[in-house]
Each structure stands twice: as structure tokens, then as C-alpha cells.
């Protein structure tokens, strides 16, 4: 597999969604290709940042209105 093909698999590789054989091919490629490894590190870093987005409190109770709406 060439670098372009490997890079198209990085998202699934990150999710461990490739299946054993492909996971191994990508893992071994990343060990010997600095450019692809750098791409993968950027992906991991950006997702770690994205996952820092904090959850917000729900501003109100939505259930009561749902009951009232159905009644009306």
C-alpha cells in the first residue's frame, strides 16, 4: 500500500475499525513512514482537542412541556 492509501485509512485505524490484517498493515507503515506517522499524530491531537468540548447543562425541563403539548 502506498502513503495515499494508508492516509485514507487513518480515521478507521484510529477507531480500530479496520480488522486485524489492515490494522497491522497501517501500524507497520506508520512505524517506518515519518510523514504518515506525523499525519496520524495530527489527527490524534485534533481529536483529543475536539473531545475536550465540555458538555452543557440542559437549560430547562423539556418533559413537562412534551406532556402538555400532547394534551393540547
Amino acid at each position, binding site marked *: 500500500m502506498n502513503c495515499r492509501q494508508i492516509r485514507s485509512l487513518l480515521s478507521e485505524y484510529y477507531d480500530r*475499525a479496520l480488522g486485524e490484517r489492515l490494522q497491522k498493515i497501517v501500524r507497520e507503515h506508520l512505524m517506518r513512514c515519518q510523514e504518515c506517522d506525523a499525519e496520524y499524530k495530527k489527527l490524534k491531537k485534533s481529536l483529543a482537542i*475536539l473531545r475536550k468540548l465540555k458538555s452543557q447543562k*440542559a437549560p430547562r425541563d423539556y418533559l413537562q412541556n412534551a406532556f402538555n403539548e400532547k394534551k393540547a
Partner: protein
Amino acid sequence: MSEQKNIENAHLIKKAQEGDKEAFNQIFRREQRYVFNFMYQLTGDKAKADDLTQEAFIAAYRKISSFRFEAGFRTWLCKIAINLFKVEWRRKPKHVSICLGKIKVTATEDQPERIIIKREMQWCIAHTLQQHVPKKYRMVLVLRDLHHMSYKEIADVLDWNMGRVKTGLHRGRQIFRNHFINGKCRAFAAHDNLCTCEGIKEYEL
């Protein structure tokens, strides 16, 4: 979710389907924050997210009898919410203007006084996601990376096939990464936790 929890949930949903409000309350109360956040992450607008969440719960209450236990109830609820979001999106003007707070930075020896836009990291993440990742990619990115759904669950929520989920996620992650890490925002002078509308300049893990 444990097997025991699944059985309890299924029991509550059946009771809710028979019109038991208390059961509906129990099963959906803990989902309010989840759905509100889901809508907020997609819209970037608290008032809009609030409206969409309310609409989603009204629709869920109306449609509870149609829940068939084929998917998880959270997946089912997300599907209702995302369909409302899609309808809302069609009404939304394509160009979004954002109100940004500008602050003045005092001149230093090597830099003249300049106006910059001060935002915190949380704002920058949300902004990049909501304003720079197109809707179709944002949906899949939010479901996977913020709500930790499996590819299969995402396919169910979005009515996409698995191939589309995978390519959509790949593209969405690329766009987010490119903007956040590779973007032109990095060309701006570095400043601790300051960012401009174009993206973030400094990040720390």
C-alpha cells in the same frame, strides 16, 4: 450498558408506550442533557438548541408507541432530533454572522497596538466545529467523537450506509484537523489562548 439496565429500560419504555408518564419521565429525564448538547454542538446556538430539544421531546412523546426496540432508544431519540435539525438547517441563512468580542492589545516594543478577538479554547473548538465543518460532516463527527456512537448506530441515526459513514467521518475529521492544526490561523502571531475567527492559534493538550 449492562444487560440488567437494558431490561429495565425496555420495561420502562413499554410502560411509557402504554401511557405511563412516570415511566416516560424516568427513561427520558437523563436524556435531556444529552439531546440538548447534541443540538448545541450541531447548531452552536443555545436558543436554537433549546427549541430543537423541546421539539425533539414533544415528538418523542408523540411517537413513543412507534419505538420498535430494533435500535437503542438513544439512537432513536437522536434520529428524531437530527431530523428536526436538518429541517431547521434548510431554513437557516447560509452565511452566518457571528458576534465576536474585540479587545485591544496594548502596544509592546516589537508589536504595535492591535485589535484581536479574545476567545477561550472551548469557544474555539465549538466555533471550528460549527462554523468551519460543513453540516453533513459535522453530524457524523459529533455523533462519533462527542457522543461515541458506533459506526452502525451513526448509520441508523443518519440513514446512511456504512461506507458513507466511514468516508464522512474521515472527511469531517480532516476538515476539523486542517482548520485547527494546519489552518491559516497559525499564521497569526501566537498569543496564549487567544484566537481569531479564522481559527485557533495556540493549543495545549
